[in-house]
């Protein structure tokens, strides 16, 4: 039997890897991938809690999070394609038009 804290610690590490990738990478697509890592950390936490609380609500939540992740990937990558078409770059530090 694996204790709950192991799962929660792993979820925290995964979430923080995602945060680190989101804050440090330049490529928009890799930033979206980092968001997926964060969502997976949360998913792991929810599934572990659903198992240890003997309830299926956490798994239902995870199901919806996967749906939202798919929608977010579709929209975000569409934006990335449009961005590349108009600016020829997907690097966030070159997109500073609003800075004036």
């Amino acid at each position: 039997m694996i204790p709950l804290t192991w799962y929660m610690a792993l979820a925290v590490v995964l979430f923080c890897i995602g945060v680190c990738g989101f804050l440090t990478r330049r490529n928009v697509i890799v930033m979206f991938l980092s968001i997926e890592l964060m969502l997976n950390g949360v998913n792991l936490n929810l599934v572990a809690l659903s198992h240890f609380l003997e309830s299926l609500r956490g798994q239902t939540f995870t199901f919806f999070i996967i749906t939202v992740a798919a929608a977010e990937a579709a929209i975000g990558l569409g934006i990335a394609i449009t961005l590349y078409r108009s600016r020829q770059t997907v690097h966030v530090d070159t997109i500073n038009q609003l800075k004036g």
Partner: protein
Amino acid sequence: MFDQIFFGYCALMIITSGLLAISLRNPVHCVLMVLVLFFHMAGLYLTLQAEFLAAVQIIVYAGAILVLYLFVLFLVSIREELQLDAFIPNPWIGRIIAVGMGVGLVYVIPAFTLGEKGAWPEAAIQELTNTKALGQELFTTALLPFEIAGLILLVALIGGLVLARREGAGPLDNDEHGKKQEVAS
């Protein structure tokens, strides 16, 4: 004992491939590392008696979402990406924030106590199978959110279509473009 060794293997692979995914220079390699990570996440879901979600993780995440990422990466030119720096000019601020948040969150984990147990003990789920139990939960207590999830997917479909189509392009645009190129050559 076997459980713990399996968990350790999966955790090690998840952390390693996650770190590689955010530090490798080539975005295609990043996506492939995330693929490895998702497979091990599915393994962890199996240890938590969530078989349906393990299958969904592989089919939807690894099969659909990551393929979408790969397609977009190939539409965006990655050849010049390889010569550029992969990180923003001062990445250490972000790394310090992430590590600080991780330490803080791990520090508060032992204070967590479980609430009261729900209505699905392990024996009941095993008797009914996980997929059937999840379906019952999904189509009774979470029916309205399920419908809204379908609506979200529809909105995302239409949004992706509108964003990715070229402005002012008719349906015959590709053919005309090809003809122009033929004339030019």
